[in-house]
């Protein structure tokens, strides 16, 4: 599908979530991108990006962990590296910025990870993968326009932030996911919680916080006429999908809001089935 290439190998950094709790996301990605002739080439021997734990403990460690993954990708000649988890992609971009800023960090990080870290590749999030393919081409490939979908696009906190690192879309009023959905023939709603936090890792330590935030997000999406929420982050999916039953119970409110990965909807529009994409494995499925 890509310019000048029949088939494309895209560097792929799954991160912990996509091989664990969110392997439905990986299933969805592989199925959807496969239809678009994109093969994911997973970095050999990748390690954890450090997530929220590393940068809370040690700044240098929080750079060194993703730096190793970058070095491996560069070693494998991957010019474009797709990290479907926004936290992973932000960590990779953070290292690139640190390396580019000088201060001898490139040398230091290269010594720590025992490989040269150039930081010159392109890091892509899921939306950017579709942008790279081209929304016109995506539109042309649609087999089943998503006429019944009225989606609330939910970016969460990290897809657009910190803006000085990720340089992606308007970080308060983003529009890029809406553009992808428009290409699929889906409707989107304007709503208020596009870039609010879902509670993320608090799901383990403070469930109350997560339930409160998830409730606000889900009920606001419903109030603005959405019949589903679209995410591009494994953590957002966990908190909005897996925790939805708990939200409903606690707030005595029937929500029944299907939470799609963006790749789910692209895949459905391209003619894949819910089973092929793993949509049937979500906690909230269509009644």
């Amino acid at each position, binding site marked *: 599908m890509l310019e000048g290439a029949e088939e494309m190998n895209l560097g792929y950094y799954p991160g912990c979530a996509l091989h664990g709790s969110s392997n439905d996301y990986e299933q969805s990605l592989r199925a959807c991108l496969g239809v678009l002739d994109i093969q994911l080439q997973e970095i050999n021997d990748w390690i954890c990006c450090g997530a929220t734990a590393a940068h809370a403990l040690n700044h240098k460690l929080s750079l060194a962990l993703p730096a190793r993954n970058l070095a491996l990708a560069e070693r494998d000649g991957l010019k474009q590296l797709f990290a479907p988890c926004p936290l992973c992609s932000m960590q990779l971009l953070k290292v690139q910025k640190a390396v580019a800023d000088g201060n001898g960090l490139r040398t230091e990080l290269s010594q720590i990870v025992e490989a040269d870290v150039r930081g010159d590749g392109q890091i892509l999030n899921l939306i950017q993968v579709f942008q790279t393919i081209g929304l016109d081409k995506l539109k042309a490939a649609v087999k089943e326009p998503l006429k019944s979908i009225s989606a609330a696009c939910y970016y969460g906190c990290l897809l657009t932030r910190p*803006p*000085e690192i990720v340089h992606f879309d*308007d*970080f*308060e*009023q983003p529009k890029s996911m809406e553009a992808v959905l428009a290409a699929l023939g889906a409707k989107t709603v304007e709503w*208020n*919680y596009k870039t609010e936090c879902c509670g993320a890792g608090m799901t383990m330590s403070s469930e109350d916080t997560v339930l409160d935030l998830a409730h606000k997000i889900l009920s606001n999406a419903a109030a603005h006429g959405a019949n589903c929420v679209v995410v591009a982050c494994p953590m957002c999916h966990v908190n909005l999908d897996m925790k939805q039953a708990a939200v409903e119970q606690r707030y005595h409110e029937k929500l029944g809001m299907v939470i799609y990965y963006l790749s789910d909807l692209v895949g459905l529009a391209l003619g894949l089935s819910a089973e092929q994409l793993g949509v049937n494995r979500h906690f909230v499925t269509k009644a």
Partner: protein
Amino acid sequence: MSRIGIFTCWCGENIARTVDVDEVAKQVSSLPGVRCSVNYKYMCSDPGQAMVREKIVSEKLDGVVVASCSPHMHLKTFRKAAQAAGLNPYLVEMANIREHCSWVHHDRAQATAKAVDIIRLSVEKVRNDAALEPIRVPVTRRALVIGGGVAGIQAALDIADAGYEVVMVEREPSIGGKMAGLSETFPTLDCSQCILTPRMVEVGQHPRIKLYSYSEVEAVEGFVGNFKITIRQKARYVDTAKCTGCGECWNVCPLKKNPSEFDFAMGTRPAIYIPFPQAVPARPVIDKKQCAKLIRNGCGLCEKKCKAEAINFKDEDKLVEEKVGTVVVATGYKLYNIAKEQNKAWLSGYGEYGYGKYKNVIDSLQFERLVSASGPTNGVLKRPSDGAIPKNVVFISCVGSRDNAKGLPYCSKICCMYTAKHAMLYKHKVHDGQAHVFYMDIRAGGKGYDEFVRRAIEQDGAKYYRGRVSKITEENGKLMVRGADTLAGVPVTIEADLVVLAAAMRPADGIEELAQKLNIGYDEFGFLLESHPKLRPVETNTAGIFIAGACHAPKDIPESVAQASAAASKVQVMLAADELTREPEIAAVNEQTCAACFTCVHTCPYHAIERTELRTGRGAFIKRTARVNPGLCMGCGTCVSVCPSKSADLQGFTEQQVYAMVESLA
């Protein structure tokens, strides 16, 4: 053999802290050609200048080096002192051992050695100086004022009342500027229109003020005392001489739904319009992008209705020339574009406030129109979405100002005051309403200013929260304003009916192009540069051009008016003289050696060099040559560097001088 005096200054501790002044004075006393070398704590002071004058006379000095600060600071001071003692002022040079030495170094020994070197250069320059005479130029005793806001109006009236002619150029259809649209003004709550419109009428009727409204400065030529200004009169499609301002045309115009510029889109206007009823001149213009006749030859109702036959659909832009001696720039400000403007392209504004997305999030100038008696709601505060009276209004200050990450680093200065005023006016109009103000600091320096803010809080009950707003969302018709009260240490959510953003002040559109036409400086934000922040606050670095009002920096009305009067008085000083003197440090061409290649003519950025011929007394042709017009030359030296036959030279900075200076360091 020259007799040069060296006067080394301590500048209090500014120089003496880092440079051993005594040692410097001792060392330079033995330089060739030096007759005497002294030092003093404040050379620019009266006793210091007296010392210079006394030594010139007693030592019969034929050259002076003052080793102190930048020549920008005090060259004129010492040249005047030398002249008073009978020495040609152009035989005085400054050795800058402050900005170029003491201020930028720490090591005392090295700084002292460098100061000696700097003085050595200046001594060589003086040794090769020639006595020069200032150039005298005639003065056109008229002034141009660019911008017809309160600053421009004040400057124009002051100058005209002093007896000089003024040409005023205003870009909009009417003068009055931003102030004409304000409701009431702090800290006295005078009605803005009541105090401004009589001044506007004075401008319109003044026998010595020639007003070009709906016009812009197209080009500027010439120099101090002798500017030639080309003015573009934009096509108005209304003959202002025939028009009586009766209003039949704008009443009959069917296209009434265009957003009004004067109301900042809070109200509407027809395609043929005057911006507001008190406009000066009270003559309409046709917006050519909206008029059905001009777009597709339809309608034409206004033409049929006009008894004065003033409508002219064939009108075109006209260029007119005016000759003036001085210029006052008073082009004012605009507000930071909240939704779009950013210092980095990938940030697109304060998206979290939803300006442009939620109808009830407005900026402060829009609020002014909503509470102004002349506004679209006749002074009844109605929120834009549905016309309801807002019962909870949130005011957010510093939107764009003082924000390095997202906006501009500077303080816009007036927002604290007008936000307090807004809170107050709101309470006066909606007695059962509540005003909430989010602020970073309250900056209320000024006569009666802090008392005014206290009044808003204590008498009119405005709730002030020190903290920022992080997000505004719309839920069930209410604006949910989420912010922090950092003094109480708690997050705050306010259900508001209207939110007013105090956006940063920025210079008006087109300021940089205008500054380039006028050859005056501007800073990274587009604000015009004054010649000296303390001592020459209304002058620019281009002689004869002055600045007033918010084109210089964020300013309130009292300050703009004060600066405008200051600029006007500078203009009067200049126009009072029969002729002006210009510095003689300009280029000259040796017409005997000039090879007439005219490379200099092509490269001169000021078009100051002309082609001419040398002829004998009887008119016989000798040769062609280039010649410098001393009125136009700015002394940049471009011609000197391009002249292949080395015939062009800069008086006061001759090649001989520069080479002697360089060689003295060898």
